[in-house]
């Protein structure tokens, strides 16, 4: 009985399939279905007839070459501004006293780019956030100068003084020694605190030059406080937040006689 039912179902399916084939296989059937699937009038073809939007899009907005009188006015203004700034700088420098000069040298086999070292050191020293706030300027000279900034191979640092180590930068007399290993890779404590290499370079230059200016080491004044630049931030932040620039309280120099 069950076998008969299956046979019966199968026959019905075959007949249905045949009827569908015959009905939908005819042209009329195909047209009927095509009509249902696609619109009578296809808009893409009609939309392609439009030309004006594309033509309007081709209008190019003019760029105005500034007239000669305009350029002259701008140049004159720039000159006047520069002159004013220069006068202001001169006035500030004359008010505080001096330009500090320094020379650059290397010790041992250093891996850093010396021209980059020279440029970044000068930027740091004359940065408006740094020691320049005391109204002094720093100028690199070919030789001699008030102090000598040395980029030293790590192993060469202790040769300046037994107080200096291969680990850190150091200052001995007029020699401000920057450890090449620290210049290229900062320190573990600094990197762990999330400080950038550029900020470390600011800090180490300010710190070692700070020694030459007459400063000793300072400690962190409290957890969460901004570290003084004379704190040994390369070794331990002591709970302070890292800081590459001298605090207001650090703006003095026994070396230069600035209170």
């Amino acid at each position: 009985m069950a076998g008969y039912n299956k046979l019966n179902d199968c026959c019905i399916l075959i007949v249905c399939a045949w009827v569908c084939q015959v009905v939908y296989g005819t042209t009329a059937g195909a047209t009927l279905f095509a009509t249902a699937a696609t619109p009578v009038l296809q808009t893409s073809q009609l939309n392609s007839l439009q030309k004006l939007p594309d033509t309007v899009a081709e209008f190019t907005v003019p760029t105005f070459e500034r007239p000669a009188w305009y350029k002259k006015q701008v140049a004159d203004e720039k000159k006047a501004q520069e002159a004013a700034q220069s006068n202001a700088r001169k006035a500030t420098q004359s008010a505080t006293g001096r330009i500090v000069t320094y020379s650059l040298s290397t010790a041992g086999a250093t891996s850093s780019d010396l021209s980059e070292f020279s440029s970044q050191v000068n930027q740091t020293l004359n940065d408006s956030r740094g020691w320049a706030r005391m109204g002094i300027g720093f100028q690199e000279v070919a030789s001699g100068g008030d102090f000598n900034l040395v980029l030293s191979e790590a192993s060469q640092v202790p040769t300046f003084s037994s107080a200096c180590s291969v680990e850190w930068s150091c200052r001995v007399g007029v020699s401000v020694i920057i450890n090449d290993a620290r210049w290229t890779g900062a320190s573990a404590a600094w990197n762990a605190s999330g400080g950038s290499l550029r900020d470390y370079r600011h800090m180490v230059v300010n710190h070692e030059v700070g020694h030459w200016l007459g400063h000793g080491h300072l400690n962190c004044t409290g957890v969460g406080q901004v570290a003084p630049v004379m704190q040994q931030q390369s070794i331990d932040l002591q709970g302070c937040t890292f800081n590459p620039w001298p605090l207001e309280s650090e703006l003095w120099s026994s070396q230069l006689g600035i209170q």
Partner: protein
Amino acid sequence: MIKRTATGGEVMYRRVITSCKRHPWRALSVIGAVLLLILGGAYVWYSINTWGNLVSDAQSERKIIKSKLMNIHSQDQPFESIKTLAESVHTDTKHLCDVSPLVSWHQHSFNAAKVAHKECVTHQRKISAVGESLHDITYRIDRELAFDAHVASHQGRLNKIEASDYALHKKTWQEFIDQTQKLKVDSSLEAAKKAAILSSTFIVTSYDQLIAADKAEKRAEFDAAAADVQKGFSMLGEIQNLSVEGYAKLVDTAQNTASAL
């Protein structure tokens, strides 16, 4: 020898012939009746044929138009195809439901004829609506092509002028405004035309200010006027939007009328 006796029909025929020979007016009456019968039959056949075909012809015309519309997208020159189709729809459907005066009075007397005529007119209206919407599109595109050529030629002229020749730029834009105002456009393009005039007027005014600032050597005014000219150019973008919007409405109408077929 067997003698064949006459059948009933033959007897009747002979009697009629004999009677007609005796009475000629009867002969005429018989001939007239036969002719009338033939003519009446022919008229009835013609009437049935006319009213019957009226609806089927309208239906087949709808199918033909529909099929042509579906094939437009495969044409090499769709604009020409639409134009031809719009014209043929107009000519073919103009007299679609007209019938001979011999039978036209039936629609006032016979319900079947009235229904057939009404059905034909329904088909005719749907086909005509498609024809009108296609005609609107072709007319619009014709107008738009003229507008487009006007804009393109203006662009070409502007490209040849030195950027620093503010006066010539201003003059060219003023000419653009004058010519645009004279341009004949259809209602779907009217808003775009107004936007073109508005934005180019703004450009002309800004060039006026630019020329004055240049002459007086006033930098702030010069910068402001230059920024305004650039703003005027960005306002030209409104032409695109309005042009597309106006055309989209025509296309929607055409699609709706086509779908109703």
